[in-house]
């Protein structure tokens, strides 16, 4: 078990470094950071000064290994824009994103699980069709568009929720809904097929032959089996929400990591982008690991040895 976790952690690090190297190269080919920092009316001497200041005139490998050396000592560098250590910056912004990701996940769970379960228990009924309709529609709605429509509807036409900022829980309602909606189809379908599959399993037939039916059957025999895959998918979805909050955060002006990522990418703030990608990669792999561990904890067939 420990060995396995160590292996996965090593993998996470390898992925994180690879991805941040890729990010570094991509950013450097995509444009000149000094130009980006200087802005539209920058004169050449300003750009030169910036280049000097951040050491951007050094060759790429030198800069990358410099960064790498820093990371190995726990120093992710200083943001070109914010003039503060990137690590501090990321730590500052993380709580908004965590709040958003968790509330989005709750939205997903609240919508997807009951709907999936009801659909599974009444296959081909109207509720099943309705659930399927919800899934298909949620899959087909562009996320950014949903955000804009939500703003039009609830920010302006019926001003119930604030549409920008992150100071109160109310600010998170719409973004969490938009972000959470994107995972509903996957989770709902999985719940539904999982439950249908379990309800058709031989051990459920065994339980029925012992006289179990209805709710006790569901609770005592089906639930746990059907939820196993759902739980691991939820963990993975949570991991994706971190990186996936880019558009949502910028539409709703939430000052989290997603927006930071978008703006750092557009603004070529290389140290920030690199650290964010590093963090996202680790979170992503960690969530996958968490999913495995949860599964192992809940499923006695997977031995922990």
């Amino acid at each position, binding site marked *: 078990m420990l060995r396995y976790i160590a292996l996965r952690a090593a993998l996470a690090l390898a992925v994180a470094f690879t991805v941040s190297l890729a990010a570094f190269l991509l950013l450097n080919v995509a444009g*000149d950071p000094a*130009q*980006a920092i200087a802005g539209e*009316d920058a004169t050449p001497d300003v750009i030169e000064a910036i280049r000097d*200041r951040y050491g951007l005139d050094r060759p790429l490998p030198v800069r990358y290994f410099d960064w790498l050396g820093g990371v190995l000592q726990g120093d992710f560098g200083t943001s070109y824009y914010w003039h503060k250590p990137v690590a501090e910056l990321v730590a500052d912004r993380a709580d908004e994103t965590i709040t958003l990701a968790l509330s989005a996940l709750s939205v997903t769970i609240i919508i997807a699980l009951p709907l999936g379960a009801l659909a599974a228990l009444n296959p081909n009924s109207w509720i099943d069709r309705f659930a399927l309709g919800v899934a298909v529609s949620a899959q087909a709605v562009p996320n950014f568009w949903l955000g804009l429509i939500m703003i039009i509807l609830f920010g*302006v036409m019926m001003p119930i929720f604030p549409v920008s900022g992150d100071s109160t829980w109310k600010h998170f309602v719409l973004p969490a809904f938009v972000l959470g909606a994107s995972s509903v189809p996957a989770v709902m379908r999985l719940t539904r097929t999982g439950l249908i599959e379990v309800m058709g399993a031989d051990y459920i037939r065994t339980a029925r032959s012992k006289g179990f039916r209805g709710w006790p059957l569901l609770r005592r025999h089906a639930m746990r089996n059907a939820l196993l895959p759902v739980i691991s998918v939820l963990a993975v979805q949570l991991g994706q929400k971190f990186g996936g909050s880019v558009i949502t955060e910028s539409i709703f002006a939430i000052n989290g990591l997603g927006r930071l990522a978008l703006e750092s990418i557009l603004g070529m703030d290389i140290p920030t982008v690199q650290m964010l990608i590093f963090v996202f990669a680790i979170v992503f792999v960690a969530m996958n690991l968490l999913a495995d561990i949860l599964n192992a904890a809940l499923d006695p067939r997977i031995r922990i040895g």
Partner: protein
Amino acid sequence: GPSDDTLRAAMSEEILNLDYNYTTKREYIILAQLTDATLFNIDPETQEVLPSIATSYEFFDETTLDVTLRDDVKFHDGSKLTPADVAYTYNWIKDERSESNAAGVVRRWLDTAEVTGENTLRFHLASVYPLVIRDMAARIMIRKDGTYDAGGEVDRDAMAQDLIATGPYKVASFEPGTELVLERNEDYFGEKPAIGTIVVRNIPDIGTQQAEMMSGGLDWMFKVPLDLAQSLGATPLATHLSGNDLRVGFLVLDSHGYTDPEGPLTNVKVRQAINHALNKPEMAEYLIGGSSEAIHTACHPAQFGCDTSVTDYPYDPEKARALLAEAGYEDGFTLPLWAYRDKAAAEAIAADLTAVGIDVDLRYVKLQSLNQARAAREIPAYFGTWGSGGTADTAAIARIHFDMESDRNMSGDQALADEILSAEQTVDQEERKEIYSSALGKIADEALWAPLFTYSANYLVSPELDFPLDPDGLPRLQNSSWK
């Protein structure tokens, strides 16, 4: 709103650093107007030099400038400003270690600044430089002695957050990228602003800003797209103000042939055809709106030295076609046209050029991508804009675009570059004007550019806010008041 005497302004660009000595963007100039004072001010109406921290100046000789300061200027922390602070600021910015964004400007002319008396100091200039007062007014914010290198340790971010300056407002709280709260500086030496508190919020999405405006959470927005400004301005929720802007839009054409020595753009007829093909007045009227006007010079007509009597190429697609045919391109050619802002205008330009038979491959990219490609000389033509840093002088646009050092110069014309540089060495204003006339005339005749239009600044403000506009296009929030 007036109830809490707080003006809430929104900006899309993130505000991260309050020290204008280390920033460049327009948002920072606006904030610097609020928090900082410079030695002089330039009257936006008349372009006259007005006193500010300095009361007067005098050229001892062509390269020696004596300046007298007020004696009642206080920093936000209550300490009194001395000539030593001013000298320190200038010398620091010039210093190699400063890496200040103003360094380029200052190094151009400053040799050294020295304190000469209780209220006086002397600037030794490195060369003859007629624009020195203008630069002092626009670029260099005065800091306390030792701000950036206290104890020998260089700290360029010393003023980035906890700004100690001399302007009409002081920083009450600052959360970079989120919110800046400014309070009226009761010790300000000049005329004190009418509004007590200004809150500047970062709201990246213009739609969100608008929603906030409509729900009364904002009093002031700028850089508002025309359509939005007009629509929202038509409602009682907000007032649309349209002011001047020194920014001009233009096409820069690779007349030298950096991308292709034999390329169509090296032919003056083709460049003239491009000029004729563009329906500039329509673009100005419908896409930029407000006070925007079509231009035919490589400068803003409001700028000193901007001679508008140069050759004009009015909108005439037939003539454009004819010129193209004359140049041997009756079947047109493919033109990769780069652009980074005002997508609608870029598309309109592309459509106009397409209409006369040029097959435009529009490449709408991020600014830095354009910059990088341009630096690599991979761009045959781009739709550029220039705001001259709010400086109403042709020098502020000519040098950057026609100096041989600059990659923005795609004419490769050494004589033109020399002419433009010589203007900056000329003290006599009439003489300078003539030099610019000649240079601009040449640019127009050769059709090195296709000048397009001036910009207008669109604001949306709360109906309760009185926000006066200045002709130089720089918003000065400190001048606003409640109705």
